[in-house]
């Protein structure tokens, strides 16, 4: 199957070499190559001294008189928090390379390391930016393209400058409000109490699609304090500059025993929140099940605890690759905790150990996006660890209401251990290492 | 898809669709798909067969067969059809003429019905998608089985 996909990609790549319908001026900045639509570039200039303007944004270096037009000179590196490699202090007399950009009725000079050339490409060859672009906020990138083994990041100047303008406008506005309405600013002050954490909130979303919200806010704040310390020790700013940083920040977020079969210890913890006896068939929903370790663990746990009941675990994930692996999982002996191995849930298969038919029959794996309509029956238990944090706030609310609707009365909801909710229909259960709720 | 260009020149040999006496075999096509009907028609007429009728549901299929009898040599029969399906239609035709030569045309996934049809008295079956060689081979074998 994947060979087919590869083939398809290759063929697409071949096609892309045809017509040139997009020309861009390329330049380099901090060791990376960028491109800007040639239609947005008014000219290229080398300038020596510009006039410093006080009380403006740190990224505005000053103004310059360009053949009678006064233009702002902007340091794009600063604007996007791109870390410039350490370099010798600039010689004042050295000329700066400036790209003059026309955008949103503005003319702006952008300082770049060097202007490279004009490059013609086909729009088709432009790809969406991968989500792991370290420096520049992804929304300012209209695409990326590769030419002669060099990767060019194509910037959307309209977005960059319109947004900066908006920010300025908004700030002036809120300054005015400041004088008239002190209540509103109280709120907004509280929100922006720690500008560092707000920056992190945005980058977590960009790099890891992690949404900071009341569900995980407590953990994020606590983690941020740790992060500041860690960064200080390393002599760095407490910023998340790339995906690796974001992942490191989130490392301690995930519930224990996430990508593995549950240990005996964790099984006990999970069992402690379940009633001693349950009536009738048991339905369990396990959205965001990934490769299915959690779902198999649940199925075994429930079969062990309630041997008389019919068990069905409805497991789903929107990651096709992972969920495809879940149905035919093959394990090595070392991966299998004793309680599962000795519980009669495992048999020999080709290439390793596999779950017995009885366990597999209790599982129903679906390629499914939880934001779409959920066609599951009413549930006794919902295990959705570390799922809400990856949904947008509206999605979180919708899914949470749906959990509530789908749970039978006294049904139990398990969230990630660093997630918590305030919902009128749920009461928290005291449990070690688990964030669990019962439907009231 | 095979097109007319693929049709062999039939002048240098006896076309498969002709009997020893030089008259064509007469075929009735019962199928609700215009596409399949046309496909079978094209393949068979190019080999000299004569399409003496067609029907797009089981009910009119039975009627057509009775109307044409005994001047009919072969029936191709779709399985899924409105009004009366191919299996029931086959039953009615065999009831009327136990020697009727019926070939079932089936999409994959209907093995059970194909088996059932063979038990009822269908002489052969072809699984879609159809192509010229497959159709001719099955039709010719069926006609030769006396």
């Amino acid at each position, binding site marked *: 199957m994947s060979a087919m996909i590869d083939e398809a990609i290759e063929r697409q790549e071949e096609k892309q070499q045809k017509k040139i319908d997009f020309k861009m001026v390329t330049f380099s900045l901090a060791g990376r190559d960028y491109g800007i639509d040639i239609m947005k570039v008014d000219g290229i200039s080398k300038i020596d001294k510009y006039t410093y303007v006080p009380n403006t944004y740190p990224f505005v270096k000053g103004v310059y008189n360009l053949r009678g037009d006064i233009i702002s000179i902007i340091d794009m590196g600063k604007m996007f928090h791109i870390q410039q490699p350490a370099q010798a202090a600039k010689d004042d007399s050295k000329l700066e390379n400036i790209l003059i950009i026309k955008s949103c009725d503005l003319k702006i000079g952008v300082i770049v390391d060097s202007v490279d050339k004009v490059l013609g490409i086909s729009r088709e060859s432009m790809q969406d930016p991968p989500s792991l672009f370290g420096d520049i906020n992804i929304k300012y990138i209209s695409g990326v393209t590769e030419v002669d083994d060099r990767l060019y990041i194509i910037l959307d100047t309209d977005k960059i400058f319109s947004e900066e303008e908006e920010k300025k406008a908004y700030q002036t506005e809120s300054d005015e409000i400041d004088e008239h309405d002190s209540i509103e600013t109280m709120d907004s002050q509280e929100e922006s109490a720690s500008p560092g954490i707000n920056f992190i909130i945005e980058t977590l979303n960009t790099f890891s699609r992690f949404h900071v919200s009341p569900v995980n806010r407590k953990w994020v704040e606590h983690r941020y304090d740790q992060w500041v310390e860690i960064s200080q020790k390393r002599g760095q700013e407490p910023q998340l500059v790339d995906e690796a940083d974001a992942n490191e920040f989130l490392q301690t977020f995930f519930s224990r025993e996430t990508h593995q079969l549950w240990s005996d210890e964790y099984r006990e913890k999970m069992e402690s929140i379940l009633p001693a006896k349950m009536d009738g068939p048991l339905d369990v929903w396990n959205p965001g099940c990934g490769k299915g370790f959690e779902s198999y663990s649940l199925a075994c746990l429930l079969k062990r605890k309630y041997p008389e009941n019919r068990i069905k675990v409805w497991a789903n994930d929107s990651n096709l690759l992972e969920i495809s692996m879940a149905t035919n999982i093959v394990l090595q002996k070392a991966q299998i905790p004793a309680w599962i191995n000795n519980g009669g849930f495992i048999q020999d298969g080709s290439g390793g150990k596999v779950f017995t038919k009885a366990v597999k029959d209790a599982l129903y794996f679906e*390629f*499914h996006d939880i934001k779409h309509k959920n066609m599951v029956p009413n549930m006794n238990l919902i295990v959705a660890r570390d799922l809400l944090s990856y949904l947008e706030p509206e999605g979180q609310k919708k899914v949470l209401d749906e959990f509530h609707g789908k749970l039978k009365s006294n049904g139990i909801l398990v969230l990630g251990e660093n997630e918590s909710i305030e919902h009128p229909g749920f009461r928290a259960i005291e449990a070690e290492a688990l964030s669990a709720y019962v439907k009231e | *898809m095979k097109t*007319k260009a693929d049709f062999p020149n039939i002048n240098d040999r006896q076309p498969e669709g002709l009997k020893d006496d030089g008259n064509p075999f007469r075929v009735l096509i019962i199928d609700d798909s*215009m596409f399949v009907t046309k496909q079978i028609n094209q393949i068979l007429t190019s080999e000299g067969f004569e399409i003496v009728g067609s029907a797009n549901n089981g009910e009119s299929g039975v009627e057509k067969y009775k109307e044409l009898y005994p001047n009919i040599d072969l029936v191709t029969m779709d399985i899924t059809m409105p009004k009366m399906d191919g299996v029931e239609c086959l039953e009615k035709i065999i009831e009327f003429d136990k020697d009727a030569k019926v070939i079932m045309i089936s*999409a*994959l996934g209907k093995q059970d019905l194909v088996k059932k049809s063979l038990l009822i008295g269908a002489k052969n079956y072809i699984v879609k998608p159809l192509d010229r060689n497959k159709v001719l081979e099955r039709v010719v074998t069926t006609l030769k089985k006396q």
Partner: protein
Amino acid sequence: MRVEYINPFVEAAFSILKEVLGDDLSRGELYLKATSQPILGVTAIVGLAGDVEGRVLIDLTEKTAMKIASAMNGEEMTTLNELAKATITELANMITAQAVTKLSELGFTFDLTPPTIITGEKMEITNYEVEALIVPIETSHGKLEINVALRERN
């Protein structure tokens, strides 16, 4: 969509299209859509009933439909006439039937209902929101999407 159902549909679509078009095909990335509403203009539908119910749609533009029908019939078609429609319907039938065969080998049973076709001007499928799996396939005659929406009868 149950994981086990996915591959049979992908493979069936691929092998039937390859067989009837004799074409180089390429497949786009599979994805999920919130509703099973078709979008391209010409849609052939095959219903599935049994333990699992739902439907399989083949969704393509009128232009692509005519080109594919022309290729399958070995003659140039310039309008989406009855024969062209019957051809696309048959295509849907064959793909679904083959997928169902593969599924029955795995122990899942379905029944097919006869296919129907809907074209642009009539395109109003009352649509209860059922998530659909989309399998985009690029042929030399244009793109078509296999749109599969299935659910277990609870």
